[in-house]
Every structure is written in C-alpha cells, then in structure tokens.
C-alpha cells in the first residue's frame, strides 16, 4: 500500500508538470485557435536562457548572490520570451490570419525548429543546470500508518506548489482583470471581439507572452530536475495527450488531464509494464487519450462540437 501511494504521488507530481506545459498549449489555442507545437521549443529556449543568464550575470557584474543571479536571469528570460512572442505575432501569425488550422500548425512547427536552432546557437548545446535552491532531500511521511512510510520528493512538492500557484494566478488574471476579460472575449469569438474594439494583434502578443512565461516556469522546474538539454523540448510532446484529454480549450481540463495522464502513466508502468515488456510509458498516455476520445470526442471539458450543414 505504501508503495502504491508513493507511485500515486510520483504520478501526481509528474502530472502537475505535464499540466504546466499543457497550460501553455491551452492558453494559445483558446485565444488564437493556433495549435502551438512550438510550446516545447519555447520551454527549452526559456530554460536555456534562464540557465545561461543566471550563470553569466555573476561573472559579468562580479557578485556572489545566487538569489540575485536567479532573479536577474528570470527577468531576462521572461523579457526574451515576450520578445519572442512579439516577433512571432509580427512576423508570422499576423500574416497567416484566416488560414486553415493545419497551415498554422505547420507554421508553429517551423517556429519550433527555428527556436530549437536559435536557442542552441545562442546558448550552446551542453547540459546546463538551473539551481533555484529547490530542496533535494526526500521527505518521509505517514510512517505511523504504513510500514516504512511513504517517500515523497520535496522537489516535486515544491514544483507542484509552484504549478498550483501559477494556475491560481492565471485564473485570477483571466477572471478579474480587464485584459483577462478581453482575452476571454477573443477566445469566444474573434470577430465579435474585434468589432467592440479589442485589438486582436495586441491580445495575441499578450497571450503568447503569457504562454512564454508559463513555458519559462515549466522549463525552470523541469530543468532543475533533469538539467536543461535538448530532450526538454520532447517532454512537451507528452503534453499533447494531456491537452486533448482535457479538451483543447479548457484550463481546468489541462490540469485534470495532466494529473490523470501522470498518474495513469506511472501506475501502468508499474502494474501493466512487466506484463507487456516494459517501457510502455512512451505510448500509454496517447493510447489512453485515444480511447478516451472515442467515448467523448471533445475531451473532458472541451466545448461541444456542433455540426451544421
């Protein structure tokens, strides 16, 4: 039982991180109808920027403080992501208005290649580490209830807390601010939003910036767990089944989908894996999402698709 709970916690934590990446997808899809394949590349780019700048600043300005370096690195990386968002909108999206979904999807794949190349050209292609002082020692809880207790990684716990805070902040931003309301209006209906004077291009820059900063946070958390390297950009592919499981347009869906996929993946690897020869983690999430979609094609919380002739 203790082992089961440990796996469950592990899955929940991993799921939280998937949800964090999925959040970026959902934000952009909601506001611009673009299925952003570049989210993974954005995570990598942001994490690389953060890792390198927080390493460079102390060398450039001769100071010791880790905290200051991280703060400056974070601000620089965030600014860089805003710049990326602005450029993407200016150079790419604004010229592809009214194109098919698949053309836009391909364009984001092009952006993904570009960002992958740019990030590694600018910041190098070694494995870098981000040290934001996350606690490394595992925590032993429930020792009284179970024999041997349940082992929880503190790092995961912090990561999950950060993710939860971020989601809460985003929810506040979307529900309570004027910009958030404008974003929701654009998500609802581009044309109607435009006709009441909401500037579409500015909204898109904002959404891509927010998605970029979410990518940065996801990149920092993944990066401090695994080191910043190219494979980070592939973790994002795992977020795809999460998004379609939760529904492409729903933020709560992204969170819940992430948790379901995270837990399902870990549990299946432990309990089904040995039967099937192991390594089923790489496809389990996709097949789970596929089977789920057969029953509910719009995902958990997606908008119901209504066809009209």
């Amino acid at each position, binding site marked *: 039982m203790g082992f089961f709970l440990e796996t469950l916690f592990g899955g929940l934590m991993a799921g939280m991180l998937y949800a964090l990446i999925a959040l970026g997808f959902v934000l952009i899809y909601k506001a611009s109808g673009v*299925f952003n394949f570049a989210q993974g590349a954005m995570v990598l780019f942001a994490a690389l920027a953060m890792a390198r700048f927080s390493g460079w600043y102390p060398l450039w300005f001769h100071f010791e403080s880790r905290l200051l370096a991280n703060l400056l690195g974070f601000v620089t990386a965030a600014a860089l992501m805003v710049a990326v968002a602005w450029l993407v909108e200016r*150079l*790419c999206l604004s*010229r*592809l208005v009214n*194109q*098919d*979904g*698949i*053309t836009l*999807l*391909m*364009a984001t*794949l*092009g*952006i*993904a*290649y*570009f*960002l*992958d*190349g*740019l990030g*590694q*050209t600018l910041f190098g*292609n070694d494995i870098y580490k981000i040290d934001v002082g996350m606690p490394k020692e595992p925590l032993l809880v429930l020792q009284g209830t179970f024999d041997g207790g349940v082992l929880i990684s503190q790092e995961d716990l912090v990561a999950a807390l950060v993710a939860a805070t971020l989601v809460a902040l985003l929810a506040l931003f979307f529900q309570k601010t004027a910009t958030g309301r404008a974003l929701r209006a654009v998500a609802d209906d581009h044309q109607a939003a435009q006709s009441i004077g909401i500037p579409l291009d500015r909204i898109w820059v904002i959404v891509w910036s927010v998605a970029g900063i979410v990518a940065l946070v996801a990149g920092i958390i993944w990066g401090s767990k695994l080191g910043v390297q190219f494979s980070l950009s592939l973790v994002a*592919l795992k977020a*795809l*089944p999460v*998004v*379609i499981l939760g529904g*492409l347009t729903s933020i709560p869906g992204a969170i819940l989908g992430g948790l379901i996929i995270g837990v399902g993946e870990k549990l299946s690897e432990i309990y089904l894996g040995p039967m*099937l*020869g*192991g*390594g*089923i983690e*790489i*496809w389990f999430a*996709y*097949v789970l*999402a*596929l089977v789920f*979609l*057969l029953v509910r*094609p*719009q*995902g958990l919380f997606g908008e119901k*698709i209504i*066809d*009209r*002739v």
Partner: protein
Amino acid sequence: MLYRENGQFKTSYRADQQLFPVLQDRVAMLALLAVAFVVLPLTAPEYLFRAILIPFLILSLAALGLNILVGYCGQISLGTGAFMAVGAYAAYNLQVRIPGMPLIASLLLGGLCATGVGVLFGIPSLRIKGLYLAVATLAAQFFTDWAFLRISWFTNNSSSGSVSVSGLDVFGLPIESPVSKYLLCLAFVSVFALLAKNLVRASIGREWMAMRDMDVAAAVIGIRPMYAKLTAFAVSSFIVGVAGALWGFVHLGAWEPAAFNIDRSFQLLFMVIIGGLGSISGSFIGAAFIILLPLLLNQVPRWFDMPLSTALASHLESMIFGALIVFFLIVEPHGLARLWSTAREKLRLWPFPH
C-alpha cells in the same frame, strides 16, 4: 505561344477524359519519364542516386500516400512514420520467414499489413476531427515505435534491435547497384503515382474531397463517411507502407525503429504542405524541396569558405529550415504546386499581353 491548348478539340468522351488533356502536358510528361528511365541511369553519378534520387523517390511515394489522406480526405495524420515502419517490418518478416518469397510480393504485402494497421488507427477518425485526430494519430506513432523496439518477434529476435536485408533480387535480377535500386523505386513510384492520379479523379476520390470540404454536407448527399474515411486511410497507408518497405529494403538496407520516428512523420507532413495539399505533383515538389534544402544548406558555408563546427552548422540548419518553412507558408499557403499552376496560366498567354 508554346503552351496553348487552342485548336486541341476533343471529339470523343475518351479524349475528353484522358489523364493529360493538353498535348504539351503529355509531351512534357513523356519527356520527364524518358529522362527518368533512360537518360539519368546512363549519365548520373553514383552519389546522385544514393544521396538524392533514391531517397527523393521513396519519400515522394510516402508523401503521395499521406497527401491522399491529408490533402484529399482532410484527415490530419501525424503517424505516417508508424505506417512506414509497419510496412518495412512486415515486409522484412515476410522476406525472412518465408523462404523464396519474391521481393515485389513482400513489399506489396508489407503495404497490405500497413493498410490493416492504418484502418485500425483510422477508426477513431469517425468520431474525432481536426486537431484532436492529429494528436490521436500520434498514438499510432509512439505505439509502433515501442512495439518494434520491445517485441523481439518483429525483429526476428535480433540482439541489437536492428534488422537488415541483403541479396535482393527481382525476377532474377540482383538489386545491388544504385542504378538498379533507383530503377526499382522509379518503377514503383510511377505505377503508384498513376494509380493515385486515377483514384483521385474517380468517384472514390470525389467522395474523399467531399468529405474534406464538408463532412456533414457530404453525408447528407449520400456519401458514407465511414466508407470514405476508411478507404482513404486504407489507400494512404498502403502506399505509405510500400514506401516504408522500400525505404528499409532499398535505401537503408539495415534499420531500426528510429528510422521511422516522429521526425519522419513531421518531415512527410512538411513535404505535403509545402508541396501542396490535394495535388499529386505537389507531393513530388514538396519531397524535392525538403530533401534538397538540407543538402543546399550544407553546401552554402563551403562556397563562402566558412568552416563551421558540426553542432553549430546543424543548429543553423534547423533555424534556416524553420524560417524557410514559415516563409513559404506565408508566401504561398497553398503550396509550391500552386505556383506551378499560376505559372501555367501565365504561360498560356506568354509572350502576348492578352
């Protein structure tokens, strides 16, 4: 002046329905085939076959298959690599396990196995649409990646996980030299391109296009969605499977599942979109573009005498590749094939203004 159809009157239904109704098109096509079948094998250097022509032919075949699904039937698939892998491994197993199996038969049967898998993963398309389907097809991709890596029966219990074929022959003729490999691929590509061209202008192709343009309306006028979608998946994955088998047998010779990973799927989708959705010639133009671009990008620094480290060169290459893709999507969202048809309109009048 040269490209005019004035005066070419069709006096029978046969003449009206032929594949290339314009005389100049027929001549150009025959000339192209003559160059491909006769002139190139006699003149081209070996490097050209191995590095460019053979991969180009096989990948255009795969792109052709994908184009039937995405361009004609409107079902986005990100699992093309998976269907290629199924074709390759099925053909391999047939070749290894059945003694005396002719090469052509195992290639075609490999395609048939891919058809089965394609239809299986096509079933969700009856419920799921658009981007949801795109992601759902990723399931096929990752599942086959895993299956061919972990289930050792598929690889004939090879210890390294990679499989290889050798001593190929067709009707007693050995397929070893680059020229013979090239001719084999060319024969396959020509036959399949002809088949595809005829399929898409027959009733089934029109059903696919109706499904693509508006599935509900198509269902209302009496097109069975299940039949149309599943046949598109079947035909598409058959062609893709044969292309996969050719890729493994003829181009690679020895391969492992990574040869058919998700990057391959993306690459093929790029070919189809850059070349032109819903166009047979577009598949070829797109394949040529995607294959030549990296080779060209490799050459550019050498012209300017700038030695670049391999890592930097590959990063720059991926940057330029990405930027060019975005550029082409912005300039010509309907693909390079559209450029050709615009040029044709212009040619009709050229050099006169009216």
